[in-house]
């Protein structure tokens, strides 16, 4: 089995993918930044100086301390503290974690729905295609945020604040995932339409393979490149959507802050001079979204650019 894995690795190192990655400085830098942020988020419980979820570790007396380098800073809180006295570095690490979980989770859900519906619509065609794509059109004609605000508000009203806080993360994944599936479904459908004309699909039909096997084993693997590209961009979009919802108070509660809710919680203090509570998480968000988008751009160039429809 080791020989197989070695040859896979060799194949990868031979590939155009790796070759163009090595030559693209922006891609390498973006990848390294993203990797650092993901690793930091994953290992937040070990890296963060304090646990912002643990009320016992918070001292209100430490509130609104500025970052190191400014007058009145405390070296124990390198990025300063927020209005409740939580260490900003720790909250950002934990917040990035929440944002990334929602981003990836929502895109996984989008991809699952989008791939299934896109494959069905593209491969079966006819009425199935017409119905699924009209649903997608209707879905797309509502803005994601509007749907999310309505659904979020209804949930919040019916479950109450406390309960909402517990299920918020799943709620956000669900809302953003369901609202954006047509993006992926359309991309998948477009490339399925191109793939299903190719002779290897006819060859599979001639063999007598069933529809499911042809769709998932033969066509799906050949549509993965565009899915991969659009999924990357969608992660960035999902993170932004989450941040926007949280900023509006319909997202993550302040007890379990995401980057969006951190920005919101600090926003009230920007007038009082505590700009860092908002600005630093904001910068982190911008950098995170930027590197994902840059990677997405690079992926789109490397993989089949024709099939990309954003």
């Amino acid at each position, binding site marked *: 089995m080791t020989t*197989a894995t070695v*040859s896979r690795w060799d194949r990868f190192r031979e590939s155009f993918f790796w070759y163009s990655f090595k030559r693209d400085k922006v891609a390498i830098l973006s990848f390294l930044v993203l990797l650092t942020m993901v690793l930091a988020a994953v290992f937040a419980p070990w890296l963060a100086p304090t646990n912002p979820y643990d009320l016992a570790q918070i001292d209100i007396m430490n509130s609104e301390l500025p970052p190191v380098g400014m007058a009145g800073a405390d070296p124990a809180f390198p990025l300063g503290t927020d209005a409740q006295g939580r260490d900003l570095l720790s909250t950002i690490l934990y917040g990035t974690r929440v944002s990334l979980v929602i981003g990836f989770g929502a895109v996984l859900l989008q991809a699952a729905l989008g791939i299934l519906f896109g494959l069905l619509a593209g491969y079966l065609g006819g009425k199935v295609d017409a119905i699924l794509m009209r649903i997608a059109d209707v879905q797309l004609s509502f803005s994601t945020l509007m749907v999310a605000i309505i659904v979020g508000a209804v949930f919040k009203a019916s479950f109450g604040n406390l309960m909402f806080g517990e299920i918020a993360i799943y709620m956000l994944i669900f809302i953003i995932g369901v609202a954006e599936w047509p993006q992926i479904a359309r991309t998948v459908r477009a490339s399925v339409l191109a793939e299903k004309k*190719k*002779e*290897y699909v*006819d*060859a*599979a*039909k*001639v*063999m*007598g*393979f069933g529809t499911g096997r042809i769709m998932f*084993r*033969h066509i799906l*693997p*050949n549509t993965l490149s565009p899915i991969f590209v659009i999924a990357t961009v969608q992660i960035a979009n999902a993170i932004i959507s989450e941040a926007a919802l949280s900023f509006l108070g319909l997202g993550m509660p302040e007890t379990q802050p995401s980057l969006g809710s951190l920005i919101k919680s600090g926003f009230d203090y920007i007038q009082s001079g505590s700009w860092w509570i908002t600005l630093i998480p904001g910068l982190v968000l911008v950098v995170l979204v930027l590197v994902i988008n840059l990677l997405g751009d690079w992926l789109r160039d490397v993989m089949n650019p024709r099939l990309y429809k954003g």
Partner: protein
Amino acid sequence: MTSPLVSIRGLEKRFDLSGGLLEQITFEKGRFRRRQEAVHAINGVDLDVQRGEALCVVGESGCGKSTVARTVMGLISPSAGEIHYDGQRIDNLEGKAALPYRRRMQMIFQNPYASLNPRMTIQQTLEEPIRFHFPTWSAAEVRDKVHEVMQSVGIDPDWGSRFGHEFSGGQRQRIAIARALAVDPEFIVADEPISALDVSIQAQVLNLLMDAQESRSLTYLFITHDLAVVEHFGTRVAVMYLGRVCELADTRTLFATPRHPYTQALLSAIPKLEDDRPNHIRLQGEVPTPVNLPSGCVFHGRCPYANERCRREVPKLIATDGGTRVACHAVEEGRL
């Protein structure tokens, strides 16, 4: 004579061009009309493929030869007519009932660059059909079979872990042939299997197909636009023009005494090494579109022997004394 292995009866296929109902409605001369347009790809084809023979279907682009192949294989359902395999009607079979025929009938495609799944290794490509059609076989039996077919088409079995794009066009076509042979078929439809290949490779692939026919007693339906190839390959030849068979004969008879004016023109148009100048029979005009079929004989617009009857009446495929079957009024009347 024994019963044919495959028999095609009254086959017709129209492809609708006009789209949905809304797109069909046009506004003409002051009122709305519903207009339907269709490509008449096949217009009444009867063919029998005898066991052990290689029946070649020849014609130029748009003559419906590929549509015949795809309809026989069930990739397209016919608009009218029937297809029988070994006495059983197969064009209306579905699901489980069709499965045995999916194994007994196989197909080789034109474009070796598109007919192999780019995300599957050669081993996977060849194993999948065997596992599917012989679910009781052990892993070792499947591996042996793959080994055997790869060897029989001249591809080193050690290359199984490679992907299709790592092979040359000729090698890919060999792999495609191996895939068809893997399930032990009796009948193979080859749709222009060599037209995407270089001349030197064409010969190899044709020889391979002939070897396979000999050692596995296969029956072929061979679709091609290249008459020159047919002379080596075919037992019998059917020449098609605009969705109809215009001449059907033993290969040798057809090349020795082509009867239909279109066959004659087609034969004369092949550039030969001996020629110092093009010396083809000049035809008038070009092939009409299969959207608006000419009335009567489909060839009458370009035929130097056409008369009033040709413009009016569709000629039937009639046996001549030479054993050739020709659909031509001029031949029937003895004018040609």
